[in-house]
C-alpha cells in the first residue's frame, strides 16, 4: 500500500528544489519533443536556451516578454497566497489593452505628454473592473472565482474581436481588424536602442519591490496571508474575508490591465485581434514556479520569457509549430507540481495487510 504523508521538515533551501527540478525537466523534455519533430538534440538546445542570449536583439526580446509576465505574476501571487484563485489575468489583460487604446484611438494626433499615464490609469481600471465582476459574484453569491474568472476570459476575447472589427477599427485600415496606429506620445520609451525592449521592465521591477514590501512588511499582506493559511484564525482575528477577496482580485486585475496597456503601447503600437501570447496563463505558472515569493517570481519570469523567445527562434529556424511553447509551459507546470509532491510529502510503501 502506498501512503503519502506530509513531511515535517522545515522549509529553507528545500524550497528551491522543485523549481530547479522543473526547469531541468523542462530542458530535457524540450530536447526530446523537438527531436521527435526532427530537430537534432543539440540544435534544439541551441534554439531554445542559447539563442535567446546569443544576440542583443534576442536578449532584448527576452526582457520585453519578461515585463508583462513579471507584473502579472507578482500580483497573482499576492492573491494565491490568500488562496484566492484568479485564473482570469488573460481576460483582464485584454480589457486593459482595450481601455488603454481608447485615448490614442480617439485623439490620434495628440502630442499631450500625459497621454501614456492616462492610458495606464484607464487600462488598470478596466482590468480591475473585469476582475471586480468575479469579486462581486464571489462575495455576493459565493460563486467560485476560479470558474468565473476563467469564463470571463472568453467573454473578454469576444469583446475584443467585436471592438477591433467595429467601433475601434481604423477607418483607413482597409478593413483589417485592428485600430489606427498609436501616436508617439502613446508609446512606451525604448529601453535598449534598436530593440523592442521597453520601459515596461522598469515598472515590472518596481512592481516586484512593491510586492515584496506588501507581502513581507505590510499589515495588509499579513492579513491576506493569514486568510490563506488559516481562514478560521482570520475570522477569529476579525480580518474580513470579503475585503481579502476584493483586494486580491483588484490587485490582479489592475496589474493584468497595466500589462495589457504596455502590450498595445509597446510592441504592438495598436489594438489588434491578438494582444497577448497567453501571458495571463503563463503568469500563473510563473507565480507558482517562483514559489509565490517575489524574488523567486523574478527568476521564474525570466526563465519563462526565455522559453517564449526560444520557442520563437525554433519556430523560425526549424519550422516547429508555435504550440511547442504551450507544451513546454505545460511540462514546466506539471513537473513543478510533481516535484512539490515529493518535497512536501513523503511516500512510504507498506505491505498490504492480509485482512
Amino acid at each position, binding site marked *: 500500500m502506498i501512503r503519502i504523508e506530509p513531511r*515535517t521538515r*522545515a522549509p529553507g533551501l528545500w524550497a528551491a528544489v522543485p523549481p530547479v527540478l522543473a526547469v531541468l525537466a523542462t530542458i530535457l523534455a524540450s530536447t526530446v519533443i523537438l527531436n521527435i519533430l526532427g530537430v537534432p538534440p543539440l540544435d534544439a538546445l541551441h534554439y531554445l536556451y542559447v539563442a535567446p542570449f546569443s544576440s542583443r536583439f534576442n536578449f532584448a526580446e527576452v526582457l520585453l516578454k519578461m515585463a508583462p509576465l513579471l507584473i502579472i505574476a507578482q500580483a497573482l501571487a499576492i492573491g494565491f497566497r490568500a488562496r484566492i484563485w484568479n485564473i482570469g489575468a488573460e481576460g483582464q489583460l485584454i480589457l486593459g489593452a482595450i481601455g488603454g487604446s481608447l485615448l490614442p484611438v480617439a485623439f490620434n494626433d495628440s502630442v499631450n505628454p500625459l497621454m501614456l499615464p492616462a492610458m495606464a490609469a484607464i487600462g488598470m481600471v478596466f482590468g480591475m473592473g473585469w476582475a471586480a465582476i468575479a469579486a462581486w459574484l464571489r462575495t455576493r453569491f459565493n460563486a467560485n472565482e476560479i470558474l468565473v474568472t476563467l469564463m470571463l476570459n472568453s467573454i473578454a476575447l469576444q469583446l475584443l474581436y467585436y471592438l477591433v472589427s467595429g467601433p475601434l477599427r481604423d477607418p483607413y485600415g482597409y478593413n483589417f481588424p485592428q485600430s489606427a496606429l498609436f501616436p508617439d506620445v502613446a508609446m512606451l520609451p525604448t529601453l535598449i536602442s534598436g530593440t523592442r525592449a521597453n520601459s515596461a521592465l522598469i515598472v515590472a521591477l518596481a512592481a516586484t519591490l512593491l510586492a515584496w*514590501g506588501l507581502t513581507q*512588511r*505590510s*499589515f*495588509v499582506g*499579513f492579513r491576506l*496571508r*493569514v486568510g490563506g*493559511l*488559516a481562514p*478560521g*484564525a482570520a*475570522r*477569529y*482575528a*476579525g480580518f*474580513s474575508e470579503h475585503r481579502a477577496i476584493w483586494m486580491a482580485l483588484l490587485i490582479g486585475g489592475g496589474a493584468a490591465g497595466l500589462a495589457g496597456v504596455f502590450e498595445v503601447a509597446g510592441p504592438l503600437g495598436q489594438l489588434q485581434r491578438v494582444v497577448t501570447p497567453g501571458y495571463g496563463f503563463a503568469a500563473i505558472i510563473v507565480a507558482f514556479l517562483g514559489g509565490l515569493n517575489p524574488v523567486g517570481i523574478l527568476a521564474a519570469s525570466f526563465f519563462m520569457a526565455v522559453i517564449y523567445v526560444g520557442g520563437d527562434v525554433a519556430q523560425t529556424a526549424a519550422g516547429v509549430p508555435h504550440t511547442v511553447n504551450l507544451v513546454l509551459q505545460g511540462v514546466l507546470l506539471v513537473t513543478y507540481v510533481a516535484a512539490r509532491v515529493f518535497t512536501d510529502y513523503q511516500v512510504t510503501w507498506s*505491505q498490504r*495487510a492480509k*485482512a
Partner: protein
Amino acid sequence: MALLELCGITKSFGAVTAAQSLDLSIQPGEIHAILGENGAGKSTLMKIIYGVLQADAGTMSWDGQPLHIENPAQARAYGIGMVFQHFSLFETLTVAENVALSSGVSVARATTHIERSGARFGLEIPAAAKVHALSQGERQRVEIIRALMGDPKLIIMDEPTSVLAPTAIPGFFGIVRDLAAAGCAVLFISHKLSEIRTLCHTATVMRRGQIVATVDPTETSQADLARLMIGRDIPHPKRAVATVSDTPILKVTDVTVADDNPFGTTLKDVSLTVHGGEIVGIAGISGNGQQLLAHVLSGEIPLSPGQGDIVFDGRPVGRHGVAERRAAGLAYVPEDRQAQGSVPELSLTENALLTGHMAGLIQHGLIRRAAATAFSERCIDDMDVRCAGTGAEARSLSGGNLQKFIVGRELALTPRLLIAAQPTWGVDIGAAQAIHQKLVDLRQDGLGVLVISDELDDLLEISDRIHVMFRGQLSASIPRAEAREDVIGALMAGSFAEAVAAS
C-alpha cells in the same frame, strides 16, 4: 493466563519517545485503567494495541500466542474493540445503518444485534433512530454497540466519560461492569482519578512515555494517584477577595440564534451578565451550544435585529463584528487553538500580531517589527511559555505552551473582559494551573472573566458563579457557595430545561 501481554513496547516519533519499554498485562474480565496526563503516552499505547500504530520494538501476546497487528481490521478479527473519544458516526443515517456500515452486515442483522446487546448490557437504543437526534451519551452507546459487534474479548475506551453528564456516569459504569462480568476485559483510558477509583480493578499510571506504577486504585488515595501521575502535588490557584463592579461589563439579553449546521444546537433566550472582578463559568457537556455562544459573544457571528442584545461596557455591540468588539476591550481565547487561536505555520511574533496588532504594532500600514517582537517576547515571559524564541513556529510548541502563549497575548491587550473557551483542553496540569492562576489574578485586578468549559472540576475551582448550558439553553447562575457537583450535574443533564418546558 493473561489475555493480553505487552513486553518492552517502544515507539518513537523522531526525537520524541512516546512509549518506552512498556510492560502491561491484562486479565480476562478485568477493568484496567491507563492513567496519565495529556502527552503521557496513553494514546500511543492504545493505538499500538489497536493496530493503528506499529511498535518500534517489543512483543505482544494474546492468550499466550504471539500477536502481530498491522491494522485495526486485524485487531477486530482477534477480538479487540475500540470506543473512540471522538465519535465516527454518520449523523444522517440510523443507528442500525451505522452499525451495518462499519461491520459489513445487513441492516436487519445489525438491528438484531443492537436489540440483543441492548437487553444484555443495558444499552437500550432505538435501532431505527437517526444519529443526529441522539444525545452524546446515546451516541456513545452506539459506538459501544458497534465495538461489541465482533464479540470482543477486550474493549479499549478512550476518555469515555468526557462526553457524559455527571448523572449519566453511574449508568455508564454499570454497563462497563456488566461487560467485565461477561468476561470482556476493558482498557479504560482516563485522567479522572475519582472515576478510576470507583470503577477499575487495576490502574497503570503513565508519565512521559513510561509506566511509573501499577496499583490497585481502590487502595490508593486520590492524592497519591495524582502524585504518581504528575510527579508532584497538584497546586491550587490562590484566590483572594475581589471587588465586584456595580455595573456589569457584559450584559447578554435573550439571545436566540440558529446554528448554520443543520444538526447544530440553536441558542434559545440566553441571558447572562459578567461584572468586573468576577469569574463566571459556563458548564455543560460540549456540543450543547457553547461554541455558538462563544462565536456570538466574540463577534464572529454578529447578531441580526430580533436575535437579542449584547451590551458591552454600557454600549450595545450585538451588531458589531470582531474588530469593533476587540477595540472596545474584549479579548477571547478560542476553543480551537490550532485552527483559530493561532496559525501553525507562522512564527510566534506573527501569531502575536494576529490580535496584538491593535496594541500599536502597525504604523502607516506597515508592521513595526521590533515592537511586534517585543510584544511577543512579553507574552512569552508573562506566561512562562517554553519555546525556542519569538521566531519559533506556533506548531513547534506543545498544546499547553501554545495555549499559554495565546492567553498571554490576549492579556497583553489589557482587555476589560476576557472570554476563555475550554482554556485547559488538552493542556497538562502544570499549564492548566498557570492559566487558572492567571484568570484568578485578572479577577483580582477587576476584570470580568467568562470561562466556558466542560471540565466541571475546573469551573468549581475558579468560578464565582456558574451557569449550565443544555441544548442551547442557559440555566440561572448558581453562586459559588451553592455550586456542588451534584447540583450542577443535575443541571448538566437538563433538569432546568425540563422545568422550563413544563411550565
